[in-house]
């Protein structure tokens, strides 16, 4: 493992840029997490307690239950892409700046 002794971790964490990144990440991550868990459990709950709703036919033999189950896939992929986009575009750039400054300041060799 790399020598981490010279890093001033307290200062890095106290850095307003780190705090801003941390706040933003926390909101996005836990927001998506709660949403995905709630959305997922709607499926078994709906299939068990709202069967009449799930049996309503939308077109041809296709009913609400099938569409809802398929939507679980779309939502899961949607969350994944949204998060990846957000992380690639924002979190990574902000983290890279913090890392670069810290390495410069505390003399980690490139």
């Amino acid at each position, binding site marked *: 493992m790399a020598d981490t002794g010279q890093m001033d971790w307290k200062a890095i964490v106290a850095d307003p840029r780190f705090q801003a990144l941390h706040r933003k990440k926390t909101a996005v991550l836990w927001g998506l997490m709660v949403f995905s868990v709630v959305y*997922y459990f709607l499926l078994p709950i709906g299939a068990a307690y709202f069967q009449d709703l799930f049996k309503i036919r939308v077109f041809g033999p296709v009913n609400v239950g099938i569409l809802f189950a398929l939507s679980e*896939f779309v939502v899961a992929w949607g969350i994944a892409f949204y998060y990846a986009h957000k992380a690639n575009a924002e979190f990574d750039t902000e983290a890279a700046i913090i890392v670069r400054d810290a390495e410069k300041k505390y003399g980690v060799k490139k």
Partner: protein
Amino acid sequence: MTARRFASLAAAIALTAVATPALAQGAVADKWRWLVFLVFGAIIASTMFVTYLAAKRVKSVADFYTAGGGVSGLQNGWAIAGDYLSAASFLGIAGLISIWGYDGFMYSVGWLVAYITVLLVIAEPCRNIGKYTLADILAYRNNPRATRIVGAISVITVSTFYLTAQMVGGGVLVKTLIGIDYEISVVVVGVLMLGYVLFGGMVATTWVQIIKAALLVTASIVLVIMVWSQYGFFGDFLNNVVADPKIQARVAQILGDGAKNMSPQELGQRFLEPGLLFRAPVDQISLGMALVFGTAGLPHILMRFFTVPTAQAARKSVIWAMGIIGGFYVLTLFLGMGSAMKVGADQIRAIDAGGNMAAPLLAQALGGGADSLLGNFMLAFVAAVAFATIVAVVAGLVLAAASAMAHDLWVGVIRGEHVTPQEQVKAARIATVVVGAMAIAIGIAAKGQNVAHLVALAFAVAASANFPCVLLTLYWKRCNTGGIVLGMIVGTLTAIALVMVSPNMTYPKAQKAAAQKVLDATPAKLEKLNADLAAAADDAAKAKLQKAIAAVDKDVAAAKGALDKFKGDDTSLVGLEKPWFELRNPGLVSIPLGFLCVIIGSLLYRDKRAEDMWDELYARQNTGILAAKAVAH
């Protein structure tokens, strides 16, 4: 046995792809076995070649455990899919859909959603903090010795449960497909896997998993295109499902008296509606919790994130894995319903009551049936994919258990990190042999045992012990050694204990009562059938009745066997006459309890190191600072 019991039992059976050995010979006729061996041989030869190439690259201990961190995001995504899509999801879910329709499809959703948890809160921080094992993450800011011990024990427990289910499931699967003896196939799976891991370490394991995932996806796409060409795409396909006489008959069979006033069209439509299989919603929710939170705590999945160079690559690999795994489950809908039409639930269940043979039989039927070359080639191909699946999953599991044994227990705890690199590689290989030998021994010892609940149990332990500990040490400042130790121990023990007293276990008294009921009903049933037979007009009706009589005779034999087996035995393994805990999956209780224990343990314990290290851990897990350098050293 009540319908509900049977339904949940069927689900449990399908979960691990454990087939009841219903057939003496395999699904492939003797005449065509050479074809199966040819395809198996080709796949084994290609994986062996990959292992040979990999073996040259495995020099350091990092190469052995994590392929030196040199796996790309794309490669790792395929490898995760290969590691995760066990025979249970490949064969089991297609089977569930073919027999139970909508409920089987609904069941598959949780397996994908689980990766949201992995993506959002586990993959990247673990990549930034960990080195080789789950316990590395726990030991980062907590007491290394204590957390490595509990972490390694939990990892070995989870892996062993999963491993046992795979070995037994694999043995039965190969026997059902091609009729090779159970013991021989367990040994073959074990020795092959040992070959890959021992010589090629994580490099070979990764490639075996990638090859397997590619084969699985190819096979599924080919089959689904053939299904579509015959039954039409989405809307037309579902119209055909509703209009299919085999499916209508199957629904009538499930509903029994409830189907009396339904038109054929209504019966077919019912296949696309929930509630044929799952009658206990709380059980479903409990299982869903174990899946959604347990996947993120499965050691062989976590370990895959140490093989990529950066957190960005870890993220990319989960996105790829979610695309492959989710796409695969959507295809499974068509595989399952396709085989319900093409093969029919009766024939699928005749070979294996859990439905695990749905996909292989569909392949055979689409290729032209049991007597055609193409049909048997396609069956052989699907069988070979199933075989590769078991080997790939087992290899990942053995590597995870071996790393806990060698890296955490031997290097970390016993030798206090004072070990030369050469000794570490040696320890890793010795641990691999130990775990591999153990897997073969357990596989043979557990022959004929009902291990169906073990995969669910592995997920439950991972969700109740590993997940709360990893999550809270990464995200909760106050978390410390006390919480990790208490959470790991209570989470693991609660999950196991609740399964021991759940309906998953065998309860001789209930079994005997069910068997007796079958025997009591037999004379009247036979009398009526024989009377009908005497009065039957044409040969077709006669043949049908004779078949029904043969089925009754089979049930009688099974019931007599059960009575004999449980003679003088009234209680389950832990001495209960009936289940004490009603849920099949303990997640609903054990997961919150695991979290609670980590919190209480942390609050009651004071650990200066855990507090002092928090800033470092938090900065590193969020930014990946120094992480790339940790690999280079």
